[in-house]
Structures are given as structure tokens and as C-alpha cells.
């Protein structure tokens, strides 16, 4: 559905996107993840033809989009990061305007408005002026506006920024319906849990380059361990304890971090044996925490920084 090949975009002397390549297959949901300034929005703008690219190629359904009026642009729907709505008009008037720009006929548009509003749960507020909507409702209408012309690929640029949990759930339900309808989604976000919940595949970008590209299981599987055990000790852990613990089967790494012992494990089943070994060495356990390796960990491993930095 979408193929990005060696995309380059410069702003003055700064290379915002530096050879990014990835694909979104039909019916696939792909997460585009990266910290601020990684090049996500520049990539999205380039795909949508909103900015001139300095190198590479972007193919929509196998062919590039040529010019502003290329009908192939109808294959795309964009949910911008901003609330791209006309606050002075009603929800229905907004949708009618954006649908008209897509060249939709009046009956088809009326039907599409009804369908889109229902998808995002705003049918009852169709006639209300957008200015009176809550932030979450505006976000949902923002999504509905991109779906009117029934695009095959929907690009969502941080669609849940500043949204309360209830509205976020409503948005997710809508997106899952879209996935069920076989739409391709390209989803940029800061939120790992969103990507984990929604995406079939994740492309991680950093400094304008692709740092990783794969499905969630592949990426987490690429990590040396699946679980992490953090142990607070009394007295503080001794350096001489590290080497014996590393030799325990199933422990992939062991190190001190902020006065605590941190162990990466393939399986949590070995935790009792590890605690016994610590006790034998003279350590007394004060606190214990386990966590499953996730996309956040993957991101941290790949980029050396937190996704929300």
C-alpha cells in the first residue's frame, strides 16, 4: 500500500530525514515511533505530499503521487497532530467541507458523514458547533474528517495527544474497527502501550534514520532477555556477588544500578533460586520488582533514551 524508499528531507542545513525506508502493506497497522525531532512528522508530511522531498521515493499503491491534483491522493487520509477543525462550524459542516474537497457527491457525502460520525461515536453531536466540544470529542472528529472519502491508507500523527483515558479508549475502538475493515494505518505516537495494543509492526526512527523495523514479537525477541528483576538489598550489594549470579542458568545479565541489583532473565521461574543465592552470600532482600521487557525497553536499548525524551 505504501512504500517509502530512502527518503531524505532537509530543512536548511539540517537533515530531518536521512534515508528512511519502510513499507505498509494492505490491511497492516504500522507504528512509526521515535522521540521528538526523530523525523516522524517530516516523514508523514513527505508521504502526504505536503513538503517537497530532497531524495528517495514514495509510492502509494505502487506508484508515486504526481502533483497537487493527482486523484491518487484520495487513497490517503490524514489525521494531523493539530485539531484541524473549523471551530465556528458544526461537526457536520466540517465534515461536509472536507468531504467536498475530496470531490464527493452530495448523497455519498451525507452517507459518509453519518458513517464517520458513528465510527467515532459523535452521531448525537453532529449539529453542534465544534467550539462547544471537549478536547477528546474534537480529537475524535479530527479522525472522522480523515475517513470521509474512505481512504485505503489512514495516516495518524499522534492522534491521542492530550486526550483523557475515556476518549482514548473511544479512539482506539474506532481504530480497531478500521483495522477490522481492512484499512492500512500508519500510526505515529509517543505511547508504547498504544503501539503495542494496535500495531502489527513497528518502525523505530531516531535522528532521521530507521533504528528498527519489525513486528512487536520480533523486536522484543531481539532483546537478550524477556524479563527484568530489580532487587533492593541490605546491606548494599557487594561487587563479588555479581560474577556468581551471572553464572546462574537463565540470567543473561547482572549489574548494579543506583544501589540496586538488576538482573535480566529469560524466565521468572528462576527467581526463587536467585533469591536463595543472594541470601547465602549474606544479602538481605528489602524490595523486589519484576517487569516484562516491552517496546519501551526495545527503544531504550536501540536509542539509549526514553521515547518521551
Amino acid at each position, binding site marked *: 500500500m505504501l512504500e517509502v524508499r530512502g527518503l531524505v528531507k532537509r*530543512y536548511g542545513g*539540517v537533515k*530531518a530525514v536521512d534515508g528512511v525506508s519502510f513499507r505498509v502493506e494492505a490491511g497492516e497497522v504500522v507504528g512509526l515511533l521515535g522521540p521528538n525531532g526523530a523525523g516522524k512528522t*517530516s516523514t508523514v*508530511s513527505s508521504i*502526504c*505530499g*505536503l*513538503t*517537497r522531498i530532497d531524495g528517495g521515493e514514495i509510492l502509494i499503491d505502487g506508484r508515486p503521487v504526481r*502533483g*497537487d*491534483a*493527482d*486523484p*491518487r*491522493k*484520495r487513497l*490517503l*487520509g*490524514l489525521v*494531523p*497532530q*493539530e*485539531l*484541524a*477543525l*473549523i471551530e465556528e462550524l458544526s461537526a457536520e459542516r466540517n465534515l461536509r467541507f*472536507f468531504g467536498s*474537497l*475530496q*470531490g464527493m457527491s452530495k448523497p455519498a457525502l451525507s452517507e459518509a458523514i453519518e458513517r464517520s460520525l458513528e465510527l467515532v461515536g459523535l452521531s448525537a453531536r453532529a449539529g453542534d458547533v465544534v467550539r462547544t466540544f471537549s478536547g477528546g470529542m474534537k480529537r475524535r472528529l479530527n479522525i472522522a*474528517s*480523515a475517513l470521509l472519502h474512505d481512504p485505503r491508507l489512514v495516516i495518524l500523527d499522534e492522534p491521542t495527544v492530550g486526550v483523557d483515558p475515556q476518549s482514548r479508549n473511544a479512539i482506539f475502538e474506532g481504530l480497531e474497527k478500521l483495522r477490522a475493515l481492512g484499512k492500512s494505518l500508519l500510526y505515529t505516537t509517543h505511547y508504547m502501550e498504544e503501539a503495542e495494543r494496535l500495531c502489527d509492526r513497528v518502525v523505530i526512527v531516531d535522528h532521521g534514520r530507521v533504528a528498527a523495523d519489525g513486528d512487536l514479537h520480533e523486536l522484543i525477541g531481539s532483546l537478550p532477555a524477556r524479563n527484568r528483576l530489580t532487587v533492593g538489598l541490605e546491606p548494599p550489594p557487594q561487587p563479588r556477588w555479581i560474577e556468581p549470579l551471572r553464572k546462574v542458568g537463565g540470567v543473561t545479565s547482572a549489574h548494579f544500578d543506583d544501589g540496586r541489583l538488576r538482573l535480566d532473565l529469560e524466565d521468572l521461574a528462576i527467581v526463587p533460586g536467585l533469591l536463595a543465592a543472594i541470601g547465602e552470600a549474606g544479602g538481605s532482600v528489602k524490595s523486589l520488582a519484576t517487569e516484562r521487557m516491552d517496546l519501551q525497553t526495545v527503544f531504550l536499548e536501540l536509542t539509549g533514551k526514553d521515547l518521551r525524551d
Partner: protein
Amino acid sequence: MITRPLLAVVAKDLQVFFSDRHSVVLAFVAPIVLASLMATVFGGAGTSKPSRIEICLVDEDESVISRAIVDAASAESRLRVRLEPREAALARVRLGESTTTVIIPEGFGERAADALLGDDDPPELPFHFDPTHQAEVRMVQGLLTRLILESVAADSLGGVGDLLGEFETDAPRSGSATVAGGARAADPARDEFLALVGFDDAIEEQDDADARADRAEFTRVFPGLADLLDSPESPATLPDLGPNPPRELGSSAARAAPKPRAKSRGVSMPYAPRDVSILVGGTAGEHQALAAHAFAGMIVQFVLFSAVEWGVNLLIERRRGIWKRMRLAPVSRFTMLGGKVVGSMMISCLIITGVFGAGALIFGYRVNGSFAALVALALAFSWTAANLGLLVAALGRSPQGARSVSVLCVLLMVMLGGGWIPSFLFPEWLQTVNPAIPTRWAVDGFDGVFSRGFSFGEARPALLALFGFGAAFAGATALTFRWEEPS
């Protein structure tokens, strides 16, 4: 107790104010620019060449006096004189190319000379003018009155100085004035003449109160002359009037060698000015024309404000991401911006229709020219304004900044286009740039169709100018509009 929070509020507001560079610019630069222009207009700069008012003279008399009037007017630094045949001269006034046309009728010189000495009724001198240019016309009348008096007096009496000499008296100065033998000079015509040329203070036989009243009456009719007489260039000596040099009134030389009085009848105004409005409908027509002119000026200003706001809205749409979404639609740039232009034009046309319509209902003015020309002018000015708005969107970086700068530009355009003060008051260099300002053409065009009966053809220059300005703004927009989303 309240000092700290009060200071905090003050400090915050000042920080916010000074952090908005455009507001600061508008607050300081706008008044400086506008006030400097006003100061320049009203002579503050002191170095500009004086402004000149264009008039047409039609010399149907071709006498020595009429030729002298034409020569004197041509030499007058405040006038730009065109000598034209009657029809061409009248057409120029109607088309707004000249302020007024003065027709010197056949026999004027001879009759004016007789009238000066009271031998004949003063001949009429018609001033054909557009009432929307009242101020310029009054100034022209003031200037011409002086020139005509000089010319007629120079021809008939060898100069105003000699004429004045006729009024000199041998009688000792006292509260009771005498002439030619000690009798009281009960000659109002003479007194009027002396009063009007500003020497009433030298006529000691004239009662002071009467003189002031005479002069007040005269200057009411000819306000421009009062300015001339009161100016530093008009001391107690007359200007050079030709072969007979002026002399100081009341001087010992004048008193010592009085000329014999040639006639005892005194002098009268040598001509009677007659205002001829180029409009139909008499006084009511003039009032209506002035009302239509006032409405045209305001419409031009507020249509421009509306169009600028239209452009600012595009910047807001860009900031909100609406423009991004619009651009994702398979629509050409031409269509996208064309839609903006058409929308803005529709609003402008509504403003023009509504405001002119309300004015017509209240003040009763009507379209005296071509209705098609009015519609075309409304479209042409709307087109100009819409493209100006788009240019604002193209050049603006933020809605606030664009709005600030644009408001200043609109105010300048309206001012320089003659919307606030008559453009004849501008220095000459400003008058030369006046045709390069769209507002000038819009106001002139609307005046033409409402008050001066413009046909479609006569409105063509204004139409071409306005469509041309719009096209230029559109071209500049095409070159500078940022289609790229900012990084």
C-alpha cells in the same frame, strides 16, 4: 499587601507586550509613520515642493486681460494650469483629472475693466467643479481672485498701486476720513476693494470696525485669499504688479505726492464668480455627492480591512492544520487559492452593496452613471482587496504579526489615496505616487459613477488600474506563497 501581586500583574503584562514584536512595532512605528506623513503633508518637513492643484482654463476671450490672467495663473506655484478648449476642459473635471475648469468668457476682459471702475456690471466667471473637491476649489478661487484683480488692475489702471493711489488723500488723518476735498469717502466699493486686498488697516479714514466686517465678509467668500493675505509673504506692500511698482501704503512718499483722483466713482469687484457644479440636482445633488464620497472612502477602508482579515484567517488555518488537511485533497493550488479569492470577493461585494445601499437609503444618493460600471468597479476593487489579503497570507509569518503590519499598510493606503484628507494637500512628490495607490482609483471610480455620471468607458481607467493592482498582488502571492509546511 497588594503591592506584590499588583507588581506581578504589571510585570507579566509588560513582558507579554514586549515579547510580541509585532505589537511593539505597531504601537511605536505606526504612529510615528502616520504622524510623520501628516506632518509632511501640513508642511512640517519644510523642504518639500508645495503641492499644486491642477486646473483647466478656457480662454474664450483672448483679450489682453484674459491672456494676462492665464499667464499669471500659469506662473502661480500652487497651480498646474492646462489651457484647453471648453469641452475637453469640462471633460477633465468630470473624469476627475482636473479639480476645476474656469471659463473666461468672450468679452470678459473689457467688461471686467469697466466693472472694476464701476462702469459696468461685473462679468460672470464660471468655475466648473466637482463638489467632492470643495476644498481645492475654494483654494483655486482664492488664488484666481488675486491674479484676476492684479491683471485687471494692471491693464486698466497701470497697477493696483496706482489704483490705491487714487484713494490717497491730502486730508490730515483723523477719526473722520475725507477724500478729494475733505468730504467723507462714502464709497463702499472702494472700501471693499481695499479691504479685500488686505490694506484696510492703512485706510485710516475707514472706520476700523467696518473694515473688519468688510474683510470678514470677503474672506468668507474667498477663504483662500485670506490665507494668502495673512501669509508672511504678504506684508504691507503689494506684490510686483508690473510696470508700476507697488509702494508702501500710508508712507510719507505716498502722502507727499498724491496722484490726482481720476474718477470719483471708486472701484468694484471686476468679476462675479459663479459656481457651476458638474453634478446634476443642484444643492441636493451636491449633498448627495458628498455623502456618496464619504461612503466610498469608508467602504474602501473597510473592504481592505476585511480582505486583510481573510488573509490572516488563512494563516490561522495553516497554524491549526486545516490548510494541511485541505492540501491533502486532490485539488490544485490554483483552485485552492482561487476559492479563497472568490470567497473574499463575495464578502467585499456584500460590504460594498450593503454599505452603499444603506447610504443611498439614508442620504438619497443615486447612481448617476453606468450601473454596469459600478458593478465592475465593485468586482475590480474586491479582486484587488482579495489578492492583497492573499499577499498578506503569503508574506505573514504569524497571524498577529501579519495583522499588525497589514493594518498599518491599509491605513497608509487609505490616507495616501485621499480617503482622509484631500490629496491636493500632499507635497508634490506624494501626489506623484498617488496613482500608484489602489485606494485612489477605487474612491475616484465610485465617485465617478455615483456623482459625475461616469459611463462604462469613463470608468475604464479606474477598472484597469484596479484589475492591474489585483493581478500584481496575485503575481506577488504566487511567487512568495509558502506551500511547504514549516519544519
